[in-house]
């Protein structure tokens, strides 16, 4: 009765709910997913950075786009050059409205010459269908039909090599392949949301549990841990990856113009191919912005530990930093003037640094620019010294090797 009022369960729920000690559930795109399995995030976080973490990312919206004009549709909707996307390759991309402002972002995998799988954070069927008018292409949502696991961490390849029929050794960064786990056909892409070595594994929802079980069993020797989305949230900031409706507002959700962001402002210059041929949505605005330089830019900032220590020392305390990614807007100042804001900040255990994704006005977004970020020290507002750094904050050598 009224099951629409309950959050949906992912295909892995039977396993994740049993393993979750903290019963710390989070809401993600209408699903219930594990926030953290344990009361502390540390074990799960270090699984990502040192061993292997198994994360249920099934709520990602998924669409299959197929037909003779599939590539044309994607070339029209996204600013990336889909003609350069080979079969077995994956592109990350944002997509825009006519004014060149971001609506959503996700990955596009070319599964065949005329078949693609696209992921998004928000429902995108309507947007794709509207743009597909007159094209010979079929767009179907497959979110509920596909279970998705993200296996992230330096040991992830070794674990997959134990359970997959084919070796993963040849699978390069942002490439995908088809293979089997036991008898279950799976797609594997070398992608993730952590900036570590990692893979995403795609399977039919009915086959979800055997795949989970096989990975957990094979991963045991490597210290695999089921991991919730809170630890992943810390890792994705370290990787310099942003999140819709946290680090930018979808143009379709914005109440006012100022809330919108362009992909260039979000640092996606490399994913905006204005040199590709033909029209794409937002092209003119993005060309103009590329010529004129963006008014804003998302960058990384490091908050200096000395400064934090000093601010806390003034009240007789050691530094107090939340051990979790904080989605709270914080003003960024330069010489007493606000020049931007932080959208997500976190303590980085692997870097031993206090880092944040910041949105800064020109010219403050240049690497090395000294700034201050507002923090509260014993309920009082203080300015902690910080500086602009290059993204990503953390990139292990094995990420792309």
């Amino acid at each position, binding site marked *: *009765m*009224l099951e*629409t*009022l309950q*959050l*949906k369960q992912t295909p892995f729920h039977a396993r994740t709910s049993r393993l979750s000690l903290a019963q710390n559930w989070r*809401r993600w*795109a*209408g699903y219930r997913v594990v926030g953290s399995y344990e009361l502390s995030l540390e074990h799960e976080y270090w699984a990502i950075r040192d061993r292997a973490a198994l994360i249920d990312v099934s709520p990602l919206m998924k669409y299959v786009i197929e037909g003779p004009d599939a590539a044309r549709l994607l070339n029209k909707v996204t600013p990336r050059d889909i003609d350069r996307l080979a079969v077995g390759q994956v592109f990350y991309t944002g997509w825009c409205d006519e004014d060149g402002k971001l609506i959503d972002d996700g990955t596009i995998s070319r599964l065949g010459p005329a078949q693609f799988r696209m992921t998004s954070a928000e*429902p*995108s*069927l*309507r947007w794709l*269908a509207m743009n597909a008018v007159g094209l010979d292409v079929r767009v179907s*949502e497959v979110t509920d039909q596909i279970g998705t696991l993200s296996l992230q961490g330096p040991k992830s390849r070794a674990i997959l090599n134990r359970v997959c029929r084919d070796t993963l050794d040849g699978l390069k960064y942002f490439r995908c392949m088809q293979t089997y786990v036991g008898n279950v056909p799976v797609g594997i892409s070398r992608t993730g949301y952590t900036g570590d070595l990692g893979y995403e594994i795609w399977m039919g929802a009915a086959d979800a549990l055997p795949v989970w079980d096989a990975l957990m069993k094979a991963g045991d020797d490597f210290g695999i841990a089921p991991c919730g989305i809170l630890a992943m949230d810390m890792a994705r900031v370290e990787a310099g990856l942003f999140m819709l409706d946290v680090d930018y507002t979808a143009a*379709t*959700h914005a*109440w006012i*113009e100022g809330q919108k962001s362009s992909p260039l402002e979000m640092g996606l210059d490399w994913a905006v191919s204005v040199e590709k041929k033909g029209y794409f949505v937002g092209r003119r605005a993005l060309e103009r912005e590329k010529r004129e330089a963006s008014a804003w830019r998302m960058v990384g900032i490091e908050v200096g530990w000395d400064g934090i220590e000093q601010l806390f020392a003034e009240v007789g305390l050691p530094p107090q930093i939340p051990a979790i990614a904080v989605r709270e807007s914080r003003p960024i100042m330069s010489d007493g003037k606000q020049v931007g804001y932080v959208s997500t900040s976190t303590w980085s255990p692997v870097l031993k640094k206090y880092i944040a994704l910041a949105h800064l006005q020109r010219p403050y977004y240049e690497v090395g620019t000294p700034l201050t970020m507002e923090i509260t020290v014993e309920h009082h507002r203080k300015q902690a010294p910080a500086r602009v750094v290059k993204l990503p904050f953390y990139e292990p050598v094995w990420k792309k090797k």
Partner: protein
Amino acid sequence: MSVNTYDAIIIGAGHNGLIAGAYLARAGKKVVILERREIVGGAAVTEEIFPGYRFSEFSYVVSLLRPEIIRDLELPRHGLKILPLPSTVTPMDNGDYLAAWADHEPTRREICRHSPRDAEAFDEYSRVMARAAKAIKPVLSLVPPDPSSMSIRDMLGLLKLGRYAKSLSEKELYRIAKLVTQSSADLLDEWFEFDPLKGTKSASGIIGTFLGPHSPGTAYVLLHHYMGEIDGAFRAWGFAKNGTGGVTAAIAASARALGAEIRTNAAVKQVIVKGGRAAGVALENGDELRASVVLSAADPKRTFLNFVESKHFPDEFVTQIKNFRVRGSSGKVNIALSGLPDFTCLPGETPLHRGAISISPSIDYIERAYDEAKYGQFSKNPYIDMIIPSMIDRDMAPPGHHVMSCFVQYAPYDIEGGWDDQKRDAFGETVIRTIERYAPNIRRLIVGKQVITPKDIERIAGITGGNIFHGELLLHQLFFLRPAPQWADFRTPLPGYYFGASGAHPGGGVMGAAGKLAAHEVLRDWR
């Protein structure tokens, strides 16, 4: 000053009259608010028609009550509680239902059961409408400037309006231009395919008007409905504790605390005019009250045609008021029940029973209901907006029992042959029969029912024509044209006589803006 001498006299203790009186008292004026009935509230009243069962007799939800009024008059301190009305459900003829909540995820999932395309469109539609409502909302709290006037104040007002329009993006302007001229059916056809969804959405566009969903202008009324949704956590939208009478009770308590006097059983016969100015009122009981300001919160017809002799107004003004359209188009059936009706699509008790239940299977259903009304009949298959107040506020009915409020459209004021007891009974029966199609056991549960026709609205609440907005929200009756050109600033051609009710800008609903704005204009003239 003698007992019957005041600074200001307010005619009518509906929410607007009470609010105007409270604001004037707050400014230190000696105020009396006169109410012809034995209770205050006007069309925002709660009455115990059957022992133990309390009805919000007329107005039954709060959607637009202005947040600044709630704050200024400290209404929460005086007992105002607005309880959530979280959902709308539309029973379908095939035994299924369509539900919508404020939360977009379950709503999307729910609509997806019926139409995946509409599910995503709904999200975007809601955002677009909320943005348009946000763009229009500031206009509601303006005193409408007169575009033909050359006065500095009107020019400044127009300038402000122009500057505001300029602040909107081109897209927003086009959207608003379209919204104010379009029919709700055309608007909804642009977005959706699923009939019960379109029917339910279109219903908000016809409430209180004598129009069908295919009539141009109804898209604006629909937009009016989104205004309440943008205050977010402030929650101006919902069901008032103790029914809608709870709202006016809080305002009355606030007005009294501020020093206003409220007299019930004090029907006004006439406004006394001396030296070309309003100078007081004569009551039906023969009493005379004096004041240099008289503010009417009655409907425009009574305000200008009944209370004041026409000779005090220009002919043209009188003609305009005579032509002001106040065609009542809706009725109300309030039902006392010995239990919860069992809806075929929602057996037992569910969270959806705490929200609205809408009989609106399609746009065509509502348009057909309108067709009958056009030719002087009540709809045989009417649009009904039901809520079960006792599911939200348990104090509305005895334990285990329930009250049900049914807003019914269309029921024309000018029914063929005129309303009589027989027609009222037939109307009530039509409503029960309509509900029975979706909740077959309702008839067995009925302890008592109160059937209210537009004629009854006029008789009991004193609204001429029985229109719930004191005058339809038609484009030619809005903003600087409400209630008449050049007199939209709450003043009237009779100096000292003011007008601040739903028939004035910005219109109806338990919004209170007219009462508040009128009081401000009174105070401005006082200086």
